[in-house]
């Protein structure tokens, strides 16, 4: 009873509210409710991912909500990844490893 009587303090924001704030901050809108729901799912997944990265990071980095929080990893890679460079570099990497094996 005494615990119940205590003021619980400010209520943590629900994920939907956090997503709404994200949309306002980065001026994001979606074409239909289905797309909105899909982006919300991705956003929630990305928040969990950011939390995991935060725990794994050995430096002082802060991970969290960014302008790319409503994109899947694949979409982010397609939109911002320089795959021409990545493919070439992977080819070089494979060649080097192959040559090492040969030796």
């Amino acid at each position: 009873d005494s615990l119940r009587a205590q003021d619980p303090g400010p209520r943590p924001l629900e994920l939907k509210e956090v997503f709404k704030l994200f949309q306002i901050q980065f001026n994001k809108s979606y074409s239909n409710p289905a797309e909105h729901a899909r982006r919300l799912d991705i956003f929630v997944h990305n928040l969990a991912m950011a939390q995991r990265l935060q725990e794994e990071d050995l430096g002082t980095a802060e991970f969290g909500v960014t302008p790319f929080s409503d994109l899947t990893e694949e979409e982010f890679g397609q939109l911002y990844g320089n795959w021409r460079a990545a493919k070439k570099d992977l080819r070089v990497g494979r060649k080097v490893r192959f040559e090492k094996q040969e030796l």
Partner: protein
Amino acid sequence: IPPSCDWRKAPNIISPVKYQGKCNCCWAIAAAGNIEALWNIRFKQSVEVSVQELLDCGRCGDGCLGGYVWDAFITVLNYSGLASEKDYRFRGRANIHRCLAPFYKKVAWIQDYVMLPRNEHTMARYVATQGPITVLINQMLLQHYRQGIIRATPSTCDPWLVNHYVLLVGFGKEEEKKGSEKDLSQSNHLPRHSTPYWILKNSWGAHWGEQGYFRLHQGSNTCGITRSPLTACIGDPAEKQQVSCP
């Protein structure tokens, strides 16, 4: 090598952070940033060069589908320089059949370009004594990055899967702030740890990260930073002069 170096502190060396939008032209923006910085250091004259010229006039087709910094440098050599950003403005899409390079006055040019040794110590020395360089990294963690120093392991950020060009503008050390209360209470008796870091200029606008910049741990090849350090050569090599980084 000085303990820290930040070319942003020198006036008119580093141009404002650019926004690549939906065009995958990090390679062209990094190359342009490298040329601008070296030109400004060498000639004490502030220029901002055209990224659009690199996209329209490159030999590898649509520059918005990705590219290589060395191809940007080859384009600069082929056209004997670059126009100014003011004259040949960035449009966010490549126009490969309409290279306008011959119609504009060149404001900066290069003599050559070099691949630097894949070694963080050598990279730091070059940045401190010559100026900013381009590097290729794995951008995976940047999707969720807000601020601070990223220190990853090969399992959290694969150093072989490098897919994003950025400009390395300096380095420094940060006193560790993380730690439990116990650690803090003992901190007076223990040697203080500091985290060495690289300062990198991204091309996702000034509202991303630390005003458009981010920091990676120095000394652990975080996210493959040593995979492809490349820089243009500006000025007469016979008159090579060392400069001091602020």
